[in-house]
């Protein structure tokens, strides 16, 4: 006997896959920390192994994203807007893409980061990864939000998490200014093309936090409805 048609009423919920997706995405951005630790020391084989790991995570995230899109048919009755969910996962996915781009670009040029800015750079990167972690934690409250029907105490909790996310992102902005200044002071001693790439990498790392914040604001929009 085929599956009962009444059960078709319950569509597959995209909530779990979305939570799963941001976990993977966050893992990808997190892997950048050991990646750069190797890059600082010029250990390119180890760094490349981590780049492959990041790329694999990015692919995994891509598959999951596609699945969510496919399993989100029209005519679903959801507590949140279908378009909001699709946009949310699109933004989430950009974090993994960015992480992959950063790792790829650094490996592609065997880009050395000058020692004088390494400490600042690591702190800056860690803070940006903090932002993706915070976004991941906020998204992981999704099923709890659902449980409470997007109302009351749980909403307040998530909003607090999002305020924290904003604060982290602001931090990274300031750190970015400092690290650019550090790079400017030594740029005359470096290969000009490397410097161009370094500026680019710094910018991209900052974008990790920017996108994480954007994911947060998507969630915020859903809460507001």
């Amino acid at each position, binding site marked *: 006997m*085929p599956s*009962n048609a009444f059960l078709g009423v319950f569509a597959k919920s995209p909530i779990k896959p979305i939570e799963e997706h941001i976990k993977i995405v966050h893992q990808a951005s997190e892997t950048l920390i050991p990646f750069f630790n190797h890059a600082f020391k010029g250990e390119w084989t180890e760094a490349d192994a981590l780049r492959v790991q990041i790329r694999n995570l990015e692919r995994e995230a891509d598959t999951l994203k596609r699945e969510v899109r496919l399993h989100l048919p029209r005519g679903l009755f959801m*507590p949140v807007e279908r378009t909001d969910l699709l946009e949310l996962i699109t933004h989430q996915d950009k974090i993994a893409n960015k992480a992959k781009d950063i790792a790829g670009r650094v490996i592609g040029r065997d880009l050395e980061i000058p020692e004088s800015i390494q400490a600042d750079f690591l702190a800056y990167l860690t803070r940006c990864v903090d932002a993706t972690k915070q976004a991941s934690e906020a998204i992981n409250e999704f099923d709890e939000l659902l449980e409470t029907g997007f109302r009351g105490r749980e909403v307040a909790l998530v909003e607090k998490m999002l305020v924290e996310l904003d604060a982290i992102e602001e931090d990274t902005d300031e750190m970015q200014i400092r690290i650019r200044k550090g790079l400017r002071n030594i740029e005359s001693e470096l290969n000009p093309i490397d410097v161009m790439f370094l500026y680019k990498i710094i910018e991209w790392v900052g974008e990790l936090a920017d996108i994480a914040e954007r994911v947060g604001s998507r969630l915020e929009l859903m809460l507001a409805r």
Partner: protein
Amino acid sequence: MDIIASYGTLLIIIAAAVGFFMAYGIGANDVANAMGTSVGSKALTIKQAIIIAMIFEFAGAYLAGGEVTSTIRKGIIDATPFMDIPELMVLGMISALFAAGTWLLLASMLGWPVSTTHSIIGAIIGFALVAVGSEAIQWGKVAGIVGSWIVTPAISGFIAYLIFMSAQKLIFDTDKPLENAKRFVPVYMGLAGFVMSLVTIKKGLKHIGVNLGTVEGYALAIGIAVLVGFIGKMAINRLKIDPNADKQMHFNNVEKVFAILMVLTACCMAFAHGSNDVANAIGPLAAVVNIVEHNGEIAKKAALAWWILPLGGLGIVVGLAVLGKKVIKTIGEGITHLTPSRGFAAELAAASTVVIASGTGLPISTTQTLVGAVLGVGMARGIAALNMGVIRNIVVSWVITLPVGAALAIVIFYILRSAFGV
């Protein structure tokens, strides 16, 4: 008249067989709907669901199943035109059962969601149309059934909404959801016990010869409710709470508490389903037996033969045991983010609606109430995803079931007529 006199026993045996066939189909298909949410939310395993369904379907059919029977038997068609031709009534009821059972099995095999209640009503209308013409059909009652397509889901949806929102207010949206769950879930259990026992007492017990007054009835129901709540509280206290499950809201643990409640609502649902849907199979059967036993006289009021209710209950249980497992199994996977608390709100509401409707004699469909209840929880933004497209299809199937049941019954009726040479 000769037909009934000479073939009386044979007719009863045929009617009993097709009645059993119909009940079998109901058990195999409908019960999956009734138990679906419990298995889907992982509150019950498939095996547990089947055992619960067996016990409570039978209990529901036997203890509270009598009331709807009379509605189907006398409410839809007017017996007066059949006074002179009782053999047509007998053949017609048999063909109605056969038609509805066939349609039910066919539709289940094709995966269409049909209402068993409406198949039998459609079939009865069908044979009445060709046997004596449209004047035998009480169109007002039919209109009432059409109205129930809207009213029933609305009622159960509303109840589900209220239950879900109350759980929100009392448990989930509080400082200490876990403590509140422990405090209030026994109350919900008591509520479920109250509804179930009240209907059993008021409507069902007289079939087995127990008559209680209003005050005693309510007192007993409240007593049972308190007892159920108390047992539930003990079960909850034995629960292992994992303090590390989730840091902030302890929702995982809260859901564990609700899972216990879910076991109870699953019982409720099976009971309600048995009480309402067994009538579909046995209503026409009861009519046949009555006419044959009174030698062709169509009695205005007649007692149900003692073996009819158990036969219907047994048919449902056998159908469930043989085919239900497969259907229920498909539920475990693929269902949405359905937690015990949401499943509970939907099931308790659906069960209450069916039980209440069963008490008032309205032949409603379990599928309808469940769809309504699930929608109600969805409206309260409690279920992650509902497939509106499928809901639309289900509503369409409610509508087409009546004409299809009628057409099938007409065909079978003509075949039977020529077979018996009437």
